[in-house]
């Protein structure tokens, strides 16, 4: 594991500072939509300071807006067909765009791609250090081999510099072998091809030609094969200038098993670097499945609910409450009063009679301002009451933050379930003044957090693993209607179940921009899983991510503990060996049965005969031995 690359470490080859080399960058970019995310522009702008020419090779499409943004920071833009991954983009850049002859004008050519964020720490630190090294090619990070080649199933993957960032110096790029390497590059049709034909081959190939290589992030410091993935946080602690995108969107099972500390990496970026984390959120929300991003980068906080109220900058807050059950209003207000800042209240309800009742109840309230009590149509329940009934307030009210509440009674559930659902929402959104102040501090601290809500309810409810229920088709349909193109979570959407949450108006724009009408919603009493309110419930977080705002879940410390022990218990029950200690060894009748059923599964008639004869033998035995069947 710890075998270093066959390179000399930085210290031993340090020399006096050579003149700044003339650098060329070939930057490969790909985005199926053709848009160019801000992180790319920022990175290229920073890279441009250190190079004499910056060429972007774009696989597939490039939008007009993207081109315009790129033109401001790069020298050459070359759009080609989306073929051959980054490998053929580099090849085309080297051979067709620049050409071997023109390449000779430069001292160093950099091949880099879009799969990382940066510079988290100034590129100058990296260039300064690497310029002193007498090597022929170098990279940022490397893969430490040899490990069995799990791509091809044959042989081993050698240690290699990762292809997302490789710099090649003149001695090497003007060599015949370099020209041949690229000219004889076979077609790359799959990701595995790109790994086998280029990424894992490049370093080994040129070292065998006698070229010397080096890695900026010394792999011997990290006892893992792929530090850029498995030790993201440690790399940043050592001021590695980049952060890979993969840890954010990769399969969370793998991120878990490899203990990829994404949250810690973000903490380091926040504390030690001037890199704007919003660049990450504005990109990754479009790429990652919401729950994967949530799990990988811990979009979750447990604000303390005791201690002093955190001082906050003034923001305009409105509480938007749908009160179908006026008898619950007092309880809701009890929670709302925990908001430590002044706020306005807007209420919707279903009849004039209820409105009068609510107006009376609010008459003497002094801790907030009641703006309006509206009677809305009773179709679509709390969802339409917000999207149709309060659209004007959200769109034009001039508020910074909204807290969405409604009178939750869940009459269809048992008392215990209904009570938990209600408390899960109210307590975790509005637990105590100290808690709400810490919750609001998240919005203040992180401008791209667009929606805050309690995590998926699971105590008493069979949601985990199933919570699309009958709404996935409808969600796909409405997502395209609303222009939401976020990749869908497979089993358990990241969802504010119960439709109560804190949000920034800009984050839910896709929902409010669409002119929903009352008639879009089902008439009472038709209200069931699969209909529009249930679909929209599942698209709220998706709308936020579509707007490039990121979701955040919160629980009070008490509720976190309560939820955690039950999550643990349920997982242990599923995973664990639910086997009581046996004191007496019993006849393995069950195992024999299972075996027989399995063996005879292809012959149902035979199985029937076996079963019949078994049961008659059994009853006969029991009759004879006198044991009561």
């Amino acid at each position, binding site marked *: 594991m710890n075998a270093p690359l066959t390179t000399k470490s930085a210290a031993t080859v340090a020399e006096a500072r050579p003149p700044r080399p003339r650098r060329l960058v070939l930057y490969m970019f790909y985005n199926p939509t053709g848009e160019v995310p801000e992180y790319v522009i920022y990175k290229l702008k920073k890279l441009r300071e250190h190079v004499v020419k910056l060429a972007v090779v774009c696989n597939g499409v490039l939008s007009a807006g993207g081109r315009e943004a790129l033109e401001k920071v790069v020298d050459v833009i070359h759009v080609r067909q989306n073929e051959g991954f980054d490998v053929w983009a580099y090849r085309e850049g080297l051979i067709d765009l620049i050409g071997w002859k023109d390449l000779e004008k430069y001292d160093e050519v950099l091949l880099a791609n879009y799969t990382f964020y940066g510079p988290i720490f100034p590129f100058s630190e990296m260039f300064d250090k690497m310029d002193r090294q007498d090597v022929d090619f170098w990279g940022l990070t490397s893969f430490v081999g040899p490990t069995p080649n799990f791509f091809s199933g044959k042989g081993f993957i050698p240690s290699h510099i990762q292809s997302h960032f490789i710099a090649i110096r003149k001695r090497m790029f003007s060599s015949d072998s370099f020209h041949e390497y690229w000219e004889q590059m076979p077609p790359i049709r799959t990701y595995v091809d790109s790994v086998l034909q280029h990424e894992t081959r490049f370093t080994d190939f040129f070292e065998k030609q006698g070229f010397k290589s080096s890695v900026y992030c010394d792999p011997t410091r990290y006892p893992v094969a792929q530090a850029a993935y498995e030790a993201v946080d440690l790399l940043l602690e050592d001021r590695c200038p980049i952060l890979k995108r993969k840890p954010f969107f990769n399969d969370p099972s793998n991120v*878990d098993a490899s*203990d990829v500390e994404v949250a810690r990496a973000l903490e380091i970026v926040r504390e030690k670097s001037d890199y704007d984390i919003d660049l990450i959120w504005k990109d990754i929300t479009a790429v990652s499945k919401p729950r994967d991003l949530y*799990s990988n980068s811990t979009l979750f906080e447990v604000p303390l609910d005791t201690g002093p109220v955190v001082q906050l900058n003034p923001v305009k807050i409105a509480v938007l409450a749908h009160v179908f059950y006026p008898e619950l209003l007092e309880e809701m207000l009890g929670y709302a009063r925990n908001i430590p800042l002044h706020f306005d209240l807007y209420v919707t309800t279903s009849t004039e009679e209820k409105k009068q009742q609510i107006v009376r109840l609010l008459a003497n309230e002094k801790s907030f301002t009641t703006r309006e009590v509206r009677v809305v149509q009773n179709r679509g329940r709390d969802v339409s009451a917000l999207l149709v009934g309060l659209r004007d307030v959200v769109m034009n009210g001039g508020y910074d933050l909204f807290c969405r509440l409604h009178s939750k009674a869940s009459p269809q559930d048992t008392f*215990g379930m209904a009570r938990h659902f209600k408390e899960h929402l109210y307590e975790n959104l509005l637990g105590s003044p100290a808690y709400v102040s810490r919750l609001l501090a998240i919005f203040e601290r992180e401008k791209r957090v667009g929606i805050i809500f309690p995590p998926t309810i699971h105590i008493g409810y069979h949601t985990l693993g199933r919570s699309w229920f009958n709404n996935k088709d409808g969600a796909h349909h409405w997502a395209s209607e609303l222009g939401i193109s976020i990749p869908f979570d497979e*089993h358990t959407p990241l969802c504010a179940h119960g439709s109560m949450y804190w949000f920034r108006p800009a984050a839910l724009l896709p929902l409010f921009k669409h002119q929903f009408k009352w008639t879009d919603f089902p008439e009472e009493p038709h209200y069931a899983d699969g209909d529009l309110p249930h679909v929209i419930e599942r698209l709220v977080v998706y709308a936020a991510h579509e707007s490039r705002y990121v979701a955040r879940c919160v629980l009070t410390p008490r509720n976190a503990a309560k939820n955690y022990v039950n999550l*643990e218990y349920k*997982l242990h029950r599923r995973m*664990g060996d639910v086997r009581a200690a046996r004191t007496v060894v019993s006849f393995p009748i069950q195992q024999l049965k299972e075996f027989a059923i399995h063996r005879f599964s292809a012959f149902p008639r035979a199985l029937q005969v076996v079963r019949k004869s078994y049961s008659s033998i059994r009853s006969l035995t029991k009759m004879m031995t006198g044991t009561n069947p």
Partner: protein
Amino acid sequence: MKNMGPWWTGYAASTRGANTPVAPTRRLAIYAFYDSVGHVPDYVTFKLKALKEHVEKLVVVVNGVIDDDGRARIEAIGASVHVRPNTGYDIWGYRFGLIEVVGWNQVDHFDEVLLLNSTFYGPLYPFSELFGEMESRDTDFWGITGFKGPVPNGFTFQGMISFHIQSYFMAFRKRVTSSRAFRDWWELLPPLDSYVEAVLKHETRFTEFLAQQGFRYSLYCDPLRYKVVNPAFDVLDLLVEHRCPILKRRAFFHEPLYLELNNVELNRAVDIIRRNGTYDLALIWSDITRTTRPVDLYTNATQLEVISPEEPTSTPKTRRVLVLAHVDNPSQLPELLTAAKNITVPFDLIVTANDETLRPKLQALQAEAKLPASSEVRIGHRNASGALSAMMLTCRDAVTDPNYELVCSIHGATITGATFARDRQFKKHHLGNLLGTQGVATRIMELFEDDPSLGVVMPPTVHIAHSTRRDHQSPGTVEWTKTLGITAPLDIFTAETPAGMFWFRPRALRLLLDFKFEPLHFEPQPNEYLELILRRLVWPAAHTVGHTVKCVLTPASMAANYVKLEYKLQKSIAEPIPPRKPDFPRGELKAFVRDRLADRPSTLAVVETSFRAARGLFRAAKTMTSTLAPRELR
């Protein structure tokens, strides 16, 4: 059923006559007690003492056994103790008390007869509130809580269970106790051989039976106030909030999935009791720990707390702390020492290892760290290779030194074959949540100060980058419980195990510390390594002596663990692992035969020899037929 009407009519009728109070003064109480080993927990004597103030005669019927100490403590209260065989549950205990101990003639002397048992804690509020209220009600019999029927019978799946007063506490006034019907019921009580029978043949029918005789009944806790079938269980926190004087024991040890499904807020109930300060929670913990599986208590009573890592605002009152830091490589020590420095009270430190050659290096590192503490390096026996073996073999004298109120055990030992990810997560999870900041260490010490029952504090089982499967009842583990005298139940499947890193009160682990472990005990075994067994036994060892175990997480650690746990659970539900293809149960059959013939070795030898011979023949035949068979048929 005919003259009874809906269940609440009896209740309504009984409250109507509240203006004509009949104040019963002379009470007889029959208390049915059961404990498998005859130990009398303190909650029982506390309850009986409180009860004695309101009853003239207190009869304790013991099903099974009672130890001398327990008997003496009960008799000191002024109760009589009567032991009978453990049959027929509390119901036959009541019958025994009524008929055999007191006798109907004597029963006539009392205005009110109470039948109650040991399945609940109390009084959470003075019994005088209960008796005072019930004395003002004109009723013939009463109870504290009822089961709200009719609901489908979940035991037999036939018919319905009707409304009934729960039999853990019932009171009968003279009109009832002197009636033929009441006496016949008890005289003709059928044998009750199972819990289900006790419920179906007595508990669920007795109220209805008496109501049919025209007796009126009443409940202290108005069942109409709660929209659940079984308020004493389903909304126990609301009952406690509304000054119900009792809390059922069952909620602590019942199947956690039931509590989860019904959102039984046990932790809230416990919090209310704590806030009220009228009932000592130690009475609950010292009892329930002895009989409850760790994971059940952990889950049901939420023995997990999020602790603030922020700057502590107070100084712990704990005077003396001992830190044990075990390493198998000096490179692990600096991290442990840095963590230990977060303890803000004076502490002593012992660094342990099992290799003499490490001593100078360890001493140098320790000196370098400039600890605000006295510290020493101890090199133990070669088998003292883990945190617990080092504690038992190398540091037992220090840990059992009564000077120390708390001990914090940490180690840097890596698991054999652990990946970087596992290793790192393991350390981060344990060191971070036990000693991560001064706030964390202080808060944990305060947990011990606030709760004298608390015995051990640790983080929940690490699951990021770790598998969570562990066998808690391996034969070796069970064997060691016997050796060490650990009687509290073990977990069946995976549960919380302190991985050698935890805070504890030395007296909570006295069953482990009192045993004179020898290096030989820790000799590595192929499957049963005592170090790992002891880790599993920490929790049950504390439970056996009445101490609780609590888990802690910082908010950040909670967040990180929560999202990953949630992901794994939803994935395991959505994509269940396909069931294993069943094999022919050859091993099981062998084990069965060996088990059955264990005391007849010669028969076993004959069976085994003939089996082997038959198998040889069979294999030979199989080979022959297959060589003879045409190739394409094979």
